[in-house]
């Protein structure tokens, strides 16, 4: 008995297919590539950086075989810009990087937020700040994914703790970027990016794949590229199609033309934030283990969640009432989910490889923030079950 439950996945499994399973033994970075191709990726622009480079290398090999475009740009900024351009031309576009490159991409990520360009940005985290620890694990970019680009905005950030989960969350990431016309960040870390595990690639059709929603407005009729439908979605027309319109990073009206009209500015900023923040419950993805009767709940994500799970399974077998919430959506922060899941917990331990970036959010979400404890490790090494156990014993008054 391992997984007590899995977070809802509105995409879900569309239908059962009967073909022989495609089983591989691959790195997380390669699972991300496979997930992206499964979701229909046909444009990748990147720049070499450790520890995400394998994503670019695999796509350089695989994309041309599928008539897709791979381009190695002159820098990280250019890669993100090329992704924006390609997405407007109709491509499902992605880039991949790590901390230093992610910093450089922030300008164009903000552009994609403002212009509502669907795209996916992979950040395989390494130690920071600055050049930091290029080959070592960390989870220090959590807040940067949320607030890295300037100005109020909202963004979706997903993560995963296993190779299989990386595949599935990558497909989800593309789907969410299409539905909400937003950049989606896939925030992995050096350990999950480089570790090898079994990956079962489901037959095409088993996982649902969301394609771009196109406008039904006919040629010659006024098309309003930035007039959301009642459900908040923006049906698009590709560059090169029958509708010619303007896209800008300035505040704009329903034609996409720049405006400083206070009413229009106010409306747009609320639309950009609300379309994501108001759907936090729909966008929450997670995995949970033994939470029903848990007195001690660990909240973790990415590689840290693997150590947490090892500890939880070990202690459960000894009868401890302990459980794990493995978050897959970091932003919009699933505060309601965490409040519900921890309602009956005595203690909440947040395990992450940073100074408490998600811990701060958890403290704001729960009823008793003084029972929330950070377990972290900041030396480039993976946080271990022993690290977690040590903190737990201290909190429980059982000494070291």
């Amino acid at each position, binding site marked *: 008995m391992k997984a007590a439950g899995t977070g809802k996945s509105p995409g879900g499994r569309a239908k059962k297919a009967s073909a022989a399973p495609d089983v591989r033994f691959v790195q997380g970075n390669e699972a991300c590539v496979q997930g992206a191709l499964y979701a229909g990726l046909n444009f990748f622009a990147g720049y070499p950086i450790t520890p995400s480079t394998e994503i670019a290398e695999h796509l350089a090999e695989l994309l041309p075989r599928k008539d897709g475009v791979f381009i190695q740009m002159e820098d990280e900024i250019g890669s993100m*810009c090329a992704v924006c351009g390609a997405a407007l031309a109709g491509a499902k576009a992605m880039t991949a990087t790590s901390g230093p490159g992610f910093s450089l991409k922030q300008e164009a990520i903000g552009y994609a937020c403002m212009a509502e360009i669907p795209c996916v940005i992979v950040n395989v985290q390494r130690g920071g700040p600055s050049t930091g620890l290029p080959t070592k694990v960390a989870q220090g970019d959590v807040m940067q994914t949320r607030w890295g680009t300037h100005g109020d905005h909202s963004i979706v950030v997903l993560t995963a703790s296993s190779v299989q989960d990386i595949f599935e969350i990558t497909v989800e990431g593309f789907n969410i970027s299409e539905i909400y016309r937003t950049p989606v960040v896939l925030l992995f870390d050096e350990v999950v990016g480089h570790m090898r595990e079994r990956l079962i690639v489901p037959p095409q059709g088993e996982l649902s794949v969301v394609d771009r929603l196109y406008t039904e407005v006919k040629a010659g009729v006024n098309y309003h590229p930035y007039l959301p439908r009642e459900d908040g979605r923006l049906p698009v027309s590709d560059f090169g199609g029958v509708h*010619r319109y303007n896209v800008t990073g300035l505040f704009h009206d329903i034609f996409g033309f*720049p405006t400083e009209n206070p009413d229009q500015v106010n409306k747009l900023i609320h639309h950009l934030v609300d379309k994501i923040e108001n759907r936090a419950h729909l966008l929450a993805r997670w995995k949970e283990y033994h939470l029903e009767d848990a007195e001690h709940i660990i909240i973790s994500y990415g590689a840290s969640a693997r150590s947490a799970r090892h500890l939880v399974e070990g202690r459960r077998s000894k009868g401890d009432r302990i459980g794990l919430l493995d978050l897959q959506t970091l932003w919009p922060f699933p505060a309601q989910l965490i409040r519900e899941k921890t309602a009956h917990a005595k203690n909440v331990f947040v395990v992450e490889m940073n100074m408490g970036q998600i811990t701060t959010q958890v403290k704001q979400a729960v009823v008793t923030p003084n029972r929330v404890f950070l377990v972290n490790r900041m030396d480039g090494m993976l946080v271990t079950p022993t690290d977690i156990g040590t903190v737990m014993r201290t909190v429980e008054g059982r000494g070291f």
Partner: protein
Amino acid sequence: MALKNYIRERFFPHIWCPGCGHGIVLNALLHTADTLGLERSSLCMVSGIGCSARISGYVDFHSMHTMHGRALACATGLKLARPSLNVFVPMGDGDATAIGGNHFIHACRRNIDLTAIVLNNRIYGMTGGQFSPLSGRGIVATTAPYKNIDEPFDIVNLALGAGATFVARTTAFHVREIASLLKQAVQHKGISVLEVLVQCPTYFGRKNKEGGAVEMMELYRDHTAPLGSAKLAENPSLIPRGVFRSEERPEYCEEYAKVIARAKE
């Protein structure tokens, strides 16, 4: 097709100052599109930030007004994803050679089929008259109140050195030459770089005592000469105008199609 069909009349009047040279380039661009009979839905304009970047809003093309300096990088992705589009990239001098300098040299090197137009007014106009990498020594700007000490780039030489396959220069005074060079640039397969010297009477002209728009354009008339002309031979200190390079080299999108073919072998 009537010229007005190439513009979005709804968004006029434009934001440029009286006497600005940018409208002259826009006019030449519309004439070029009309002369070549280009279909609007096959046209795309990708621009950065600054006065020149606003051109993209006024043309009835697919238009992407991007970030400062990033137009060529955005255009590269767009063109590769949809090679059938005819992509124009108007840029200012600061846009193209300062903040966008890296994208500029690499777009030249890559020889992707884009028409890059550098509207060189030697000043940052939108932000109120700061010196640019094209201002040159001795120029007065709001950020060079005691005269500029920065050596300038030469856009033509920069583009030639970076490997652009079509490189030309003209000025806002030479209206028909702009249209004629633009026509050649559009028809050229690969990256085309056209530098147009444009007057900014508001900031450059006023600060540097070059007078108004008319006087500044007279300077373009008097201080430039066509490549190969007797006038230029007699006075090599004049700024040469014309086509500096027009050569065939493998174009990036076509080369990428070959990558696809090799990958499928």
